[in-house]
């Protein structure tokens, strides 16, 4: 369903992503792990067509993101880092705009918006402008935008970042509910999240994949059997290790 083939991204002399390849099938929830600056966000931006890869490509449901971007983007719902949206728009206007740009009109557009508002529990704030919302509602509004067209592929960049424990629980619940019929990629720093929602995890460090397996496989790599020890072992540079 989603295949990433050896994508690289250079920013001038800096190699942010150096040859990342993986595949995700329907029903899988892939956890995308790595320290800050490892290349998670850059990789996601290339898969979603926001940044063109320096080399390599990704195919989404058979459509190549570099040669057929419009068709490929139709298959994707994307929640960018920090949940951006237009501050001066109300929640329902914003979803209306997204619905139009996704090609819905008339009654179908209305139904889609209503269903999504309901699903993301946004009914209470539908006429509030985005700029006045709390962090949790902002995150949910942007999440709503990503699932409005019921995409086969859902890509989320730190969807629970900055949320309180209750809100985190809600987001994880929603991911689990949708998991069986979609391809889902979630990037996160929170390792417990990986254990609770992901069926598979990739650890990326310095622009390359250093581990790829189920959470249980990964745990076996460390003598303590704990995911954060594995994470530290794989992502710390040698220098950092010497300094503890």
């Amino acid at each position, binding site marked *: 369903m989603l295949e990433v083939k050896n994508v690289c991204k250079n920013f001038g002399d800096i190699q942010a992503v150096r040859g990342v390849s993986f595949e995700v099938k329907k029903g899988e929830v892939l956890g995308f792990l790595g320290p800050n600056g490892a290349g998670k966000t850059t990789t996601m931006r290339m898969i979603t067509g926001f940044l063109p890869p320096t080399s390599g490509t990704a195919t989404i449901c058979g459509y190549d993101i570099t040669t057929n971007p419009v068709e490929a983007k139709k298959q994707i719902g994307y929640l960018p880092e*920090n949940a951006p949206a237009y501050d001066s728009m109300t929640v329902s206007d914003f979803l209306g705009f997204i619905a139009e740009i996704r090609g819905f009109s008339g009654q179908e557009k209305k139904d889609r918006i209503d269903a999504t508002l309901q699903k993301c529990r946004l009914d209470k704030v539908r006429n509030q402008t985005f700029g006045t919302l709390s962090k949790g509602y902002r995150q949910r509004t942007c999440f709503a*935008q990503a699932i409005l067209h019921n995409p086969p592929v859902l890509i989320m960049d730190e969807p629970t970042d900055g949320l309180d424990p209750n809100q985190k629980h809600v987001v994880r619940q929603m991911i689990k509910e949708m998991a069986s019929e979609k391809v889902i990629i979630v990037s996160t720093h929170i390792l417990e999240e990986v254990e609770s929602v992901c069926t598979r995890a990739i650890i990326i460090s310095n622009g390359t994949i250093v581990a790829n397996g189920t959470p249980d496989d990964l745990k076996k790599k460390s003598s303590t059997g704990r995911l954060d020890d594995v994470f530290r072992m794989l992502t710390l540079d040698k220098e950092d290790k010497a300094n503890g």
Partner: protein
Amino acid sequence: MDSFNNIKAIFKREIKSYFQAPVAYVFMVVFLVLIGFLTFSVTRFYERQTADLQPFFFWLPWVFLLLVPAGTMGLWAEERRAHTIELLLTMPITMFEAIMGKFLAAWSFIVISIILTFPIVITTSYLGNPDLGAVAAGYVGAILLAGAYVSVGILTSSMTRSQVISFVLSLVFCLLFVLAGWDPVTGAFSKWAPKLAELIASFSFITHFESIQRGVIDLRDVIYYISVMAFMIAATHVVLNNRKSA
């Protein structure tokens, strides 16, 4: 058809966002007050004893220098600052559709401001018999002129995430395009290099605007404005494709 709908969706959002924020009204009012003041007071409209819109069209390119950059500065800079560009450009639309939707919205906003200057036409008609053909041609010229300014504004807006920088850059670029055809400047050049002066003037917004004002819409002038817009839009496309991040 898809392409049309995508442009329409972006156009609609942009136009709405102009009128949801008080800034748009402020700029419209400032524009109308300023152009009215310059036309009637500064050029001594009533003492000229001629009922035409020459003073109005004379000031328009100068007032546009403030109004248009203010209207276009946010088009991309704000998307970049708020990171909404990442949402917009991961939607199933092409870059061209996104740019066109925004360009047409900003242009329409300026055209609405231009149309709101109609009391000046009414005043002139009340006082005498202006050549309405020339007035209509002048307005067509003003709309084309505004399109050229807007296209410069959308380009500078795509180059930065700061609205202030975008404003200053587009003011400077537009000023260069205006000055290239301004008599004191062309006069200085024409003394020692008449051919060069003519060439520079032919790139100016003003030269082509003045020729339309005479009441004849020459195809060459129309082509000039459309080429400027096409070039600036293509440049915006290049800038946005080469950006490194949001």
